[in-house]
């Protein structure tokens, strides 16, 4: 740690606020909400880090990013080295700097959180990563020795992209197969532009291609090729096809016109650019009163998108309260600023439609919180006789996703758990030799950083596995 600045001085610096687009303006556009810290504020924020000997933040990070190291290099004016250090631990920092739930990970356990606010690790990760995106020429390019081993990766979400990068670095010949026409997984079809600009994902994909990774879009594994077919042509396989099957509420009226799964709603708008209709050919219903059911990141993305498409009232309908919302704190805060209405302790029991079968409302029940369940969260209980009708013309269901059986159904030897997720050990190894898996298909709907962590661990295990196989 440099003696440039004392701990006492560090403690005196207050947390820097993220500059953001004005709430009223941004509720009508799709541009990124957070504008990024300018250099002066970033350096000030980085100086708040106490450079702990035993950094708790690293334990809080699912992939153990060496946070004090990259912050120290940053404050020492060595931003290229800071970027290198960060990229070595985390392949997609420009993404995670924007979408990680830092408040429950690194920042939750930062020592500075005990007295005041934690170091803005997410903001700084983003700062350094954005610098790296703009200055790729200042980062060393590693040209590995080709090993002659061929690896197939199924799915181009964060797990697949991370594994591809790691394996290419080790000299393997990597091909990603992606079902959709664009690479990126949830990062391109789910998470909206105002939170994660698509350009960032496109740059990461390009970077991988420059490193020699081949990406074949429009290939649906389970249909175009099966896993047994890939096994014949590749030395190892990494399955990272996500948890893309939407769950519906299973209430009457759910097939009326105007009811969407969040996946459909967001895919139409993000992947297919329906906000730009008719310049783009894919339409989306532009509801005036949009009710989004759920309380996670997906629900927040859908409701804020509805607002941006011009909804007069965009509402979250959630059966617990504000404190239980599983979404990132920043997303909830931004939603509140943008005028999103929250209907807490409310559970839908029926979608109501008119004689033309268009949605006109949602019959709901009020709930109260009861005893804590096994997960420690208080269980919502129905208040009898509390039914009421919520006026709305569009319903977006964002209550979760399950594993999609399309791929696994064509590979019966692959062991699954009772929810249909692929069973894999801590290195991603599945019941089939040479076949690894990670990300949401193993964990169920989780997070970007966990998917990336799985991709990295699996890549290392695959490298070991490939070394044991004769040429």
């Amino acid at each position, binding site marked *: 740690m440099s003696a440039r600045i004392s701990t006492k001085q560090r403690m005196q610096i207050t947390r820097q606020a993220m500059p953001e687009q004005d709430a009223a303006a941004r509720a009508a556009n799709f541009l990124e909400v957070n504008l990024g810290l300018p250099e002066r504020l970033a350096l000030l924020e980085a100086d708040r880090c106490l450079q702990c000997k035993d950094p708790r933040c690293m334990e809080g990070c699912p992939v153990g990013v060496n946070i004090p190291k990259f912050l120290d290099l940053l404050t020492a004016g060595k931003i290229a080295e800071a970027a290198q250090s960060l990229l070595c631990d985390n392949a997609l920092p420009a993404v995670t700097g924007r979408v990680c739930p830092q408040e429950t990970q690194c920042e939750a356990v930062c020592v500075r959180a005990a007295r005041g606010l934690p170091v803005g690790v997410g903001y700084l990760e983003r700062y350094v990563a954005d610098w790296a995106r703009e200055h790729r020429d200042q980062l060393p390019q590693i040209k590995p020795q080709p090993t002659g081993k061929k690896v197939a990766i199924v799915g181009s979400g964060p797990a697949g992209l991370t594994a591809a990068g790691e394996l290419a670095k080790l000299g393997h010949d990597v091909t990603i197969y992606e*079902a*959709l*026409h664009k690479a990126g997984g949830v990062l391109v*079809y789910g998470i909206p532009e105002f939170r994660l600009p698509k350009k960032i994902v496109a740059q990461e994909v390009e970077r991988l291609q420059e490193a020699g990774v081949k990406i074949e*879009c*429009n*290939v*649906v594994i389970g*249909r*175009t*090729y099966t896993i047994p077919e890939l096994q014949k042509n590749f030395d190892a396989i990494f399955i990272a096809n996500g948890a*893309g*099957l*939407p769950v*519906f509420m299973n209430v009457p009226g*759910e*097939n009326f*016109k105007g009811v*969407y*799964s969040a*996946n*459909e709603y967001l*895919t*139409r708008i993000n992947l*297919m*650019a329906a906000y*730009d*209709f*008719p*310049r*783009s*050919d*894919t*339409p989306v*219903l532009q509801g005036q009163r949009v009710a989004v059911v759920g309380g996670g990141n997906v629900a927040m993305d859908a409701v804020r998108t509805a607002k941006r498409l011009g909804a007069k009232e965009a509402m979250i309908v959630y059966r617990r309260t504000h404190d239980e919302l599983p979404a990132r704190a920043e997303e909830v805060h931004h939603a509140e600023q943008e005028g999103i209405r929250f209907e807490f302790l409310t559970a839908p029991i029926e979608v109501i439609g008119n004689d033309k*079968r268009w949605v006109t409302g949602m019959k709901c029940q009020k709930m109260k919180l009861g005893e804590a369940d096994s997960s420690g969260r208080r269980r919502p209980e129905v208040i009898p006789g509390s039914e009421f009708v919520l006026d709305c013309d569009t319903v977006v269901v964002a209550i979760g996703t399950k594993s*999609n*059986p*399309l791929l696994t159904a064509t590979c019966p030897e692959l062991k699954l758990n009772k929810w249909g997720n692929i069973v894999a050990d801590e290195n991603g190894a599945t019941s089939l030799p040479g076949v690894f898996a990670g990300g949401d298909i193993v964990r169920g709907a989780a997070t970007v950083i966990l998917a990336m962590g799985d991709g990295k661990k699996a890549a290392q295990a695959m490298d070991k596995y490939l070394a044991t196989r004769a040429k």
Partner: protein
Amino acid sequence: MHRILAKQTLSPNVTRLDVHAPRIAQIRQAGQFVIVHLAENSERIPLTIADSNPETGAVTLVIQAVGKSTNELVALNVGDSIRDVAGPLGHPTEMISSGHALCIGGGVGTAVVHPIAQSLQKNGVRVTSVIGGRSKEWVIFENELKRYGNVVVCTDDGSYGRKGFVTDAAKEILTNEKVDIVYAVGPVPMMRAVANLTRGFGVHTIVSLNPVMIDGTGMCGGCRVSLGNETKFACVDGPEFDGHKVNFDELQDRLGTYREFEQKSLACAAENCRLEKQLSQKS
């Protein structure tokens, strides 16, 4: 990129395109479809694989021009390309291995019936096809289907074959002959009418549903259809289902979700076309 290898106009608004997609040409089975995405800003639309040639890598699509995307596709010429073709998607058709199958096709649905009849005949099943169109020039795939068995043609105006609906001809066949299975593909009202007819005869009936789709991989749920009390995703659970269980009213209704947008999209395309013409005349 997938090059157009051949093009043929089959009826006033139905065009056959042979598209280069070698992997799909090799492995496709009856009943499967592809998702086609013409260019960056285009829609992703599902089209049934009507035929294929594993040697040339050609996949045959038979397209009825009904809206913007299909009109753009049929405007392509040999040598032009389609950006993305994904597939083969959906489950292959449920087959029988002996007996007598009645294949009923209405309009562009006749092209979808073609690979089914092709497979049935290969299995050694006797195939009778009943196909229909508004009038003579709307009847397609008659010669192709004749290779697999008897073909009865119906036209609404009697300008070719029998006068009347496909259901009339089908009813006669069901009354006079033993039929083990019925396949029906066409507009929703036609499939509903066939299902209602065959229910009386107690003959298992398979229909191919055409809900609005996006990804075609089970990810969005937009293609959901109801079978009795069950919800199914047509792109992964279908697109073919037991016609006696399908809720056709709901399907028909959901197909109308974007009607206003579709008209706007077409009007906009026409306006662009007009402007382009004006500009090219000026220059």
